[in-house]
């Protein structure tokens, strides 16, 4: 197999001569015989490029993607329209195949792109500073807790139960290593009660809620942030970037940190990754931020340029005292987000949000008139909502899929008392006619 290898036999011989050994095996004499691998790797034979494509096409064909059925799945990963400019830019080999920009003179393009991404995230969230990206919307929550622990010297974190279950699970997985105790505040009919939240926040390092929350409802976010602030806990909002053309920015209602899953802005669903998490903060936390940060500076001729900065926070300098162990992040996915947001502009982002809102309202009303009651009738929603389907939601999903419609996520997997409840998501990619079809199929299945 040499299609990725460029050395000829003559090259190899000449190179071995230069090194002064007689065979490639001689190069490995430093490996003790006891730990040498003495057989061939038991891997399937090499595939030609054509065979490889055929094999992967066959695997891909066994997946039901969102173009193959009419899907109303959301629950954290969203089928938003990705403009063609995103694909075009991401296929640029220079951007695709660069490493982390350790040498700024070779990497001004990617460094400037990260600086612009940081600016876009700050604008979206109303924050002062953003890092260059985290792994995803779950790990940035763990990062926020680690930051808050060191900023407050407290050892408890508060999570709203209406925060994405996977986000909570990741925080709980990291918590023992961080030395943190995790408290959860239950939802009350779809939203978090600010008084309960305030009580839980006593002596907490931070408190995380989601807007719109996992159940689709708009939280009383300003009240929740105020509740955390009253207890001197860092208020952390987990937000959907696509919502921030119509929903208020966390910075405007007093949050210390804004975090979230970036996927909806610029990334395909890709069975859950790779995507990017964003983490933005008020300026007072800048030196406690995890991950890469790009800053502006000048060269000797006064020309503007960009560098990785504030590196004394980071693992390669601070080692065990670093603010995080992260090195590789999700730059390419964050770049996709920046391109998408640049394509949208402020007016496009607002229009996208309004489109989701209007479609969501239409879907809720159509379902309600067909006899499907909203699970949380008094709540405002954005692009997702919880609806009762009158029987176990998992069964409804299975039967609806046989009719070519994936009606949403069965909430009983994560929440008590919601076994008959679906979380349905309507993005701009679903038309009113698509919603009508969802209603028809649910009626057939529920009957």
């Amino acid at each position, binding site marked *: 197999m040499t299609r990725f290898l460029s050395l000829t036999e003559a090259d190899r011989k000449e190179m071995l001569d230069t090194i002064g050994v007689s065979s490639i095996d001689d190069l490995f004499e430093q490996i003790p015989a006891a730990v040498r691998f003495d057989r061939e790797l038991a*891997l399937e034979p090499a595939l030609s490029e054509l065979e490889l494509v055929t094999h992967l096409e066959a695997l891909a064909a066994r997946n039901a993607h969102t173009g193959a059925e009419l899907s109303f799945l959301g629950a954290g990963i969203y089928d938003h329209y990705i403009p063609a400019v995103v694909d075009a830019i991401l296929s640029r080999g220079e951007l695709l195949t660069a490493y982390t920009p350790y040498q700024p*003179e070779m990497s001004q393009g990617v460094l400037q792109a990260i600086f612009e991404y940081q600016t876009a995230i700050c604008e979206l969230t109303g924050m002062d500073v953003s890092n260059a990206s985290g792994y995803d919307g779950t790990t940035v929550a763990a990062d926020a807790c680690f930051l808050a622990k060191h900023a407050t010297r407290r050892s408890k974190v508060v999570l709203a139960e209406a925060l994405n279950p996977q986000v909570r699970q990741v925080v709980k997985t990291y918590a023992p290593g961080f030395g943190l105790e995790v408290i959860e505040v239950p939802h009350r009919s779809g939203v978090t009660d600010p008084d309960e939240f305030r009580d839980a926040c006593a002596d907490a390092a931070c408190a995380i809620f989601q807007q719109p929350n996992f159940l689709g409802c708009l939280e009383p976010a300003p009240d929740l942030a105020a509740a955390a602030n009253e207890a001197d806990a860092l208020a952390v909002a987990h937000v959907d970037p696509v919502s921030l053309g119509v929903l208020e920015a966390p910075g405007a209602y007093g949050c210390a940190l804004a975090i979230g899953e970036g996927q909806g802005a610029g990334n395909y669903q890709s069975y859950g990754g790779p995507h990017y998490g964003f983490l933005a903060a008020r300026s007072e936390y800048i030196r406690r931020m995890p991950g890469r940060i790009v800053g502006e500076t000048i060269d000797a001729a006064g020309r503007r340029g960009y560098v990785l900065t504030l590196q004394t926070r980071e693992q390669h300098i601070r080692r065990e005292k670093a603010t995080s162990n992260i090195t590789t992040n999700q730059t390419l996915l964050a770049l996709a987000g920046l391109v998408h947001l640049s394509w949208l502009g402020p007016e496009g982002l607002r229009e996208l949000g309004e489109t989701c809102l209007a479609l969501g309202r239409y879907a809720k009303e159509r379902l309600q008139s067909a006899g499907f009651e909203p699970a949380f009738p008094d709540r405002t929603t954005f692009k997702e909502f919880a609806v009762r389907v009158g029987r176990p939601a998992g069964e409804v999903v299975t039967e609806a899929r046989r009719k070519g419609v994936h009606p949403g996520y069965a909430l009983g997997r994560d929440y008590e008392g919601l076994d008959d409840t679906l979380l349905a998501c309507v993005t701009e990619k679903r038309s009113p006619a698509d919603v009508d079809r969802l209603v028809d199929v649910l009626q057939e299945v529920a009957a």
Partner: protein
Amino acid sequence: MELIFEKSRSGRRASTFPRYDLPPGEVPDELRRERPPRLPELAEPEVMRHFTELSTRTFGIDTGFYPLGSCTMKHNPRVNERVVALPGFRDLHPLQDEDGIQGALELEWRLQEILAEVTGLDAVSLQPAAGSQGEVTGLMLMRAYFADRGETERSEIVIPDSAHGTNPASVAMAGYTLVGVSTDKRGNIDLDDLRGKVGERTAGLMLTNPSTLGLFDESIDEIQRIFHRAGALMYYDGANLNAVCGISRPGDMGFDIVHINLHKTFSQPHGGGGPGGGPIAVRKSLEPFLPVPAVVREDAEEAARFRLDYDRPKSIGKVRAFTGPFGVFVRSYAFIRAYGPALKEMSEVAVLNANYVLARLKDAYELPFDRLCMHEFVLSARNLKRAHGITALDVAKRLMDYGFHPPTIYFPLIVPEALMVEPTETETKETLDAFCDAMLSIAREAEEEPELLCEAPHHRPVGRLDEVKAAKRAIVRYGFEDHPDLSAEPAEAEPRQLEAQKGA
């Protein structure tokens, strides 16, 4: 070059949406956005031009030789980009029903099997998002393993002084205490130092092998005996796995937990900083603690069926969403299937290339450990500094004038003026020779025309940037009308660079 925000003009936009004739949705006033975000306003042509220009100011492996030590910058096959964009992968929702994700689960299961074979271990979780997260996940496994055995007094992790900074940072995040161990004169772990540091309080060792010096630890067998006799575990940092595929397996070296950097050894393009992938492979005894869900295969009557197993009561939990960065798995799986068992040849050629470049350069630069290397090696510019005041940084910047991306510099920390070179297996001999010629020429220039080096680079969009100013001023976002003009401020006599530039 202007920022995209500086190109913005009110009233321009690139996006359009379908108009549905629907009544608007409602948002309570107190939750509605008051002031719109100042995203850039451009029509599509300028969006394309802006990012295209940014790409031309970026150097990737597609642009040229990129011997960035410890980063394994090899060619990224383009067929991998084609297959990852198949709708069945790209547009697949992670919460789709199990019968609608059989192809994805099969791919993940197959990749797990491959990684188990390559590492010589029993069970694999693909979930961690990058090498660093693989590390902290591995340490969480250790914690869970010892808690399960009631050995809660084990609180220390041993790490050699040549380690990546991620190792100690991961130790801290996992709640462990760091115990450092030194390197001996041949570049191996100093066994005398080690013996006194391993005991009842030791949870494990974290080791990169070959090390960040590009050297295989010749005492690995004795090291694993020391740890296992003490009841401790061995963690393998897979950053340098590209040296040993099919040649020596971490499991056979005695390691119990391994992370694999899919964006290094298995060719996931690094995208200017990520994504990556950091699967972990473990011995059977650690399998119950792996993150959920596990991807498992069940042999049904007619055909194999794959499912997600959440029923793992001893699991540490989850370290990221869903099953991991799936698109990365597609690319790495495709990469490995293109090689098959010839992955061994991949590693052989990587080691051959590194030794060839080393052989050509070792008389012009200092070689702190005079041995054959594995897939990378570390030289020191100490001789140039002593004789001519030329630093590793100067050498790196001058290499840019010759059209090469510099090697990693000032890492590992135990080698002063370090230049860490990793050519990888995909280069031609002509490219390696051109790089060697450039390095030799630079060594001569250091003597004859040192100012050429001190003022380098000469042909990039910017010269050396003032990193001290960047850190002090901390301008980390565009400030619109309040954005400062640094060029109008009095310049420092010499732009100041920080030495440490290396992560992993």
